[in-house]
């Protein structure tokens, strides 16, 4: 894998800078901050596209920030996986920004929630881009912290006691996780004297300090990704946050720590990964699928169902570890498994964001997200119900959708490896997803009850349209995946 120092195009650096500067502008402009959206969102989309084109054409590139060479300087790394996640973040962020402008509209007086959402959202976006582009472990820590703190703020945005309690629980898990990650980074520095990702990969030896560092970082990232058994903070946090915040949290924030974990064990600590540890991660993923799905079957509210579904779908991504990391990295099926996990992350991000946005629109119009209140929604809000249905198609993994492609890649990789246990996990996930997602969907397509309907103002069209656009993107990922696949691999990752 040849790597070149790219000094010509500034796009990757701008993908981090533009949202951060826009966040500052949003703080200053307040109510007039919609102009920031009009500038930052198209810029973000275009920059993500340009970065993907660069990754596709040049292969992995490394940026020396400030001209300083590693190990003293901080480097950014652009490759196919980073470009794919940057694109996912830009698309979801664009839809959420359009949604939030209508959701938090402030007719007369400025409200806290309307004022605070935009800067937090833009900071989150900038932080996520920094995580995906990070080539240095400490920079990665700072970016993960930025993402975590913004996410915690987004959870507590509503200001109710329950939302703040959910944010506090998330905070305790996330802070413990960050602390573990930082301790691992410190141990790695102590053992090898470098924090740059490439140099660490070259210098790492299977010794006690490195093992301890790897274990600590893994546990910390598992806590942030809400993998079973450290998942308890996710359902209340994602269900209690306002709908656009829930979309960002489930679709993007948990992917940041998963992405870091994937990078950790396929690149940075790759030489010392053992089959046992990778199998343990895969088993936890399978347990997450089971636990999340069964818990989702028992929930009475739509947003809680969608939140538990996140736990289950995240578990599916962890099949990348036994099939593509550690000793499996040299096997021929590792590429398919790695691609499957990446596609699962992207398809889930799009579909889950669409589901949360649709649930938010339904909540605005119907007033409650209890399953009983969803009856007949398809008749009254066809766009939102259709968006939720398309999101279900992708989450269950029916063709043609991004979710189907992801499951297909994972199952075929497991079958090629002869690991029928791992092959059963995506299939079981699909069946269970169908079970818990068809409950609310079935309620929606029932006839509304006879009698006077409660009259509430209909949800703005923009809310429903944003959900539909994201759901269509999730389907599109499965219909036309070739370009994405080529970008994923032409960049040289995996």
């Amino acid at each position, binding site marked *: 894998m040849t790597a070149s120092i790219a000094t010509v195009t500034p796009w990757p650096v701008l993908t981090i800078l533009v949202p951060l500067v826009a966040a500052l502008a949003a703080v200053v402009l307040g109510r007039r901050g919609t102009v920031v959206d009009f500038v930052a969102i198209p810029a973000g989309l275009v920059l993500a596209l340009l970065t993907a084109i660069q990754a596709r054409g040049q292969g992995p590139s490394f940026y020396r920030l400030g001209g300083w060479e590693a190990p003293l300087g901080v480097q950014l790394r652009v490759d196919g996986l980073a470009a794919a996640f940057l694109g996912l973040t830009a698309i979801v962020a664009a839809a959420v920004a359009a949604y939030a402008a209508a959701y938090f509209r402030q007719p007369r007086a400025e409200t806290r929630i309307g004022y605070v959402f935009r800067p937090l959202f833009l900071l989150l976006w900038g932080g996520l881009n920094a995580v995906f582009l990070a080539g240095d472990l400490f920079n990665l820590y700072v970016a993960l912290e930025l993402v975590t*703190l913004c996410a915690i703020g987004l959870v507590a945005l509503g200001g109710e*006691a329950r939302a*703040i*309690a959910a944010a*506090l*629980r998330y905070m305790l898990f996330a*802070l413990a996780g960050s602390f573990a990650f930082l301790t691992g980074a410190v141990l790695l520095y102590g053992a090898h004297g470098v924090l740059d990702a490439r140099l660490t990969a070259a210098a790492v030896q299977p010794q006690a300090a490195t093992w301890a560092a790897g274990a600590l970082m893994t546990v910390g990232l598992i806590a942030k990704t809400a993998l079973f058994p450290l998942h308890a903070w996710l359902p209340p946090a994602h*269900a*209690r946050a306002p709908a656009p915040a829930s979309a960002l949290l489930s679709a993007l924030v948990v992917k940041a720590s998963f992405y870091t974990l994937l990078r950790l064990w396929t690149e940075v600590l790759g030489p010392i990964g053992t089959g046992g540890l990778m199998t343990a991660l895969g088993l936890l993923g399978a347990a997450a699928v089971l636990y999340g799905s069964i818990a989702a079957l028992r929930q*009475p509210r739509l947003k809680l169902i969608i939140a538990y579904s996140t736990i289950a779908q995240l578990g599916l991504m962890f099949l990348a570890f036994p099939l593509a990391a550690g000793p499996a990295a040299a096997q021929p099926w590792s590429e398919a498994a790695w691609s499957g996990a990446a596609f699962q992350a992207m398809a889930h991000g799009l579909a889950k964001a669409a589901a949360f946005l649709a649930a938010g629109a339904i909540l605005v119009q119907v007033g409650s997200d209890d399953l009983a209140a969803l009856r007949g929604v398809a008749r009254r809000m066809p766009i939102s119900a259709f968006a939720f249905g398309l999101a279900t198609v992708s989450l269950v993994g029916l063709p043609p959708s991004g979710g189907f492609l992801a499951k297909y890649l994972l199952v075929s990789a497991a079958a090629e490896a002869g690991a029928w246990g791992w092959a059963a996990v995506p299939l079981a996930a699909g069946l269970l997803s169908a079970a818990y997602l068809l409950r609310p969907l079935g309620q929606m397509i029932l006839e509304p009850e006879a009698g006077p309907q409660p009259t509430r103002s209909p949800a703005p069209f923009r809310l429903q349209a944003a959900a539909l656009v994201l759901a269509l993107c999730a389907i599109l990922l499965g219909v036309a995946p070739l370009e994405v696949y080529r970008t994923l691999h032409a960049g040289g990752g995996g």
Partner: protein
Amino acid sequence: MTEAPALFGLLGSALVALGLYGLAAAPTLIRRIVGFNVAGSGLFVILGALGARDAAAGPDPVPQALIITGVVVALSATALALAFAVRLAAMGQRADTLETLPEDDR
């Protein structure tokens, strides 16, 4: 008497242990936040001890930069946690323990 870096490393480890115990087992929220800070400080002491090199080269500046960054991050996180605690208190909610935090409907 052991060398200074080893002594600082051991002290830092002891602080981390104390802080983690507080984070996990303290009865009130404020004490958990304090425990987090103590553990963070311990980690920074360890990081400082890692920066020791022979006298001719002088101390390694990279851990010092990492410590400064870590202090800022820990400060921000502490401020956020305390803001939540104050807000909950202002609303009349007991936030002494996680058990008394308002629960979600299940």
